[in-house]
């Protein structure tokens, strides 16, 4: 469900970056106020745990396919919303920078879709209400399944909104929603089942780990303000972006004395154009190669 850069317009991407950046700042402030240094290495290794746990696959009955745990809700239960959000954000940053999962501009959208909803909505408003502090299998199971499904459902809905606002995909809202939402609801239920099974295992072996984390109550009204800000920023910005070119497009078109790009204006593919592109790639590649050789030679001489 990672959004890629190519699906997000610069304006929508920037708007969601601002929202996610504010959430990071807010969570960091809350964590600093707690002043609990024991949790710092715990967050680090639990972030690494999410990576590791995603390597362990399980077979999904009746489909012949396999899946892995997402880990968002699990982290929220173990760390509380603020620390879980920062931990999930760090996982998304590393996935974007080194694993080609998601994009740099789409990182703000991905943080909202994959970290905000499980940590700040699904955990406090669904899991905590259903499961509370109880370790009874029924309440734990109901809480995990409902919260994971809600988190993934909201996340996938947010993907649809961001994509439609960006105006890059031709898929109409309803068609896209009919593809995305049911499948993510099912994925959410499976994620909930796995989270439930893992938490049940922990409840049996080391129940102390599942004690409710400090600061894991319902987030204050501030969070509703962030959600509202995201919708307004993305909504208004996306509406502007989808009907008019964004600022960068507009200024470049003006500077180049061309038509502001609309639809088919720039679709011409001429032989000269192709020759130009090939020449630029050749020059860039050769210059890079020569510079690289020079640098390697300089390093060898130093050695």
């Amino acid at each position, binding site marked *: 469900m990672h959004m890629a850069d190519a699906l997000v317009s610069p304006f929508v991407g920037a708007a969601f970056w601002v929202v996610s950046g504010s959430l990071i700042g807010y969570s960091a402030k809350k964590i600093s106020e707690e002043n609990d240094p024991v949790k710092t290495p715990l967050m680090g290794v639990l*972030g*690494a745990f999410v990576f*590791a746990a995603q390597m362990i696959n399980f077979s999904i009955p009746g489909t012949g396919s396999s899946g892995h745990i997402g880990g968002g809700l699990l982290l929220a239960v173990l760390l509380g919303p603020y620390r879980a959000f920062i931990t999930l954000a760090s996982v998304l940053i590393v996935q974007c920078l080194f694993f080609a999962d998601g994009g740099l501009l789409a990182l703000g959208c991905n943080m909202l879709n994959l970290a905000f909803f499980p940590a700040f909505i699904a955990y406090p408003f669904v899991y905590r209400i259903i499961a509370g502090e109880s370790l009874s299998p029924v309440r734990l199971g109901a809480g995990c399944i409902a919260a994971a499904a809600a988190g993934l459902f909201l996340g996938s809905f947010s993907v649809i909104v961001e994509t439609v606002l960006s105006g890059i995909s031709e898929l109409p809202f309803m068609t896209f929603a009919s593809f995305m939402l049911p499948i993510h609801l099912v994925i959410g239920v499976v994620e909930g089942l796995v989270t439930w099974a893992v938490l049940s295992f922990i409840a049996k072996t080391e129940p102390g780990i599942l004690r409710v984390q400090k600061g894991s109550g319902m987030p204050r009204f501030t969070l509703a303000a962030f959600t509202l800000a995201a919708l307004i920023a993305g909504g208004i910005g996306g509406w502007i972006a989808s009907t008019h070119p964004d600022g960068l497009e507009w200024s470049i078109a003006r500077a180049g004395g061309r038509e502001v790009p609309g639809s088919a204006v720039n679709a011409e593919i001429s032989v000269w154009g192709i020759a130009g592109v090939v020449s630029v790639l050749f020059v860039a590649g050769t210059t*890079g190669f020569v510079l690289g050789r020079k640098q390697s030679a300089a390093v060898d001489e130093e050695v």
Partner: protein
Amino acid sequence: MKRFSEKSPGVFGGDRSALVVVVLFVLFVLSIPKFNFLAVVVFAAFPVFVMGAANVPAGMIAKRLLQVSPFVLFMAAGNIFIDRTPLLRFFGVTITGGMVSGGVIAAKTLVTVAGVLSVMYCIPFYRICRALESFRVPEVLVTQLMLLYRYSSVLGEEAVSMQKARDMRSFGTRGKGIFRTAALIGSLLLRTMNRAERVYRSMSARGFQSRMSGRSATGFGYGEWVHIGVWSLCFLALRLIF
């Protein structure tokens, strides 16, 4: 997450300016209208140049590009099926609007991912974290990134060996169900928690006080501004010409 070089290429002027340049690169690529295929392809010059200058193995980047999210391909395919308006004829073949815009989505993804990966492969991760810190990114997140990077390979190896042991003892799909696997993940989690406690003790013994480093934010130097300016002009030139 292996690094190839401890020395970032001088073509960026520094780690911070490299991060700014890569963000500008992504913004310029994404500003290309959805029907301008050639303008996207020409921006592949950036990753090609960086890969050459920093000796980043092209095979490694290509391997990552092959793993590009199926979600993007689905969206690109969606455009091909929905927008069937004939747009142009190329060597006698009719090309529809959906083909071009779908191709642009796929090309933008490949070009931006290749650009980001090629820059990231030539800067060590701890220096990326320091650069982020100097951009006033909250220290909590920077410390978290450093710890995550440090322990992901350790726990990854543990997870791979657990999975291998499970696979050797299971037959077909038996023993690989959700609930059996959950116990495996649970025990990995318990080991992780124990490791966190050991890590905390050893970090405390070394004087750890909730933060890995404490660099104060500083402004950009003259050299960094020059590099950012030169790269911006190159990107702008590509956008104006193509």
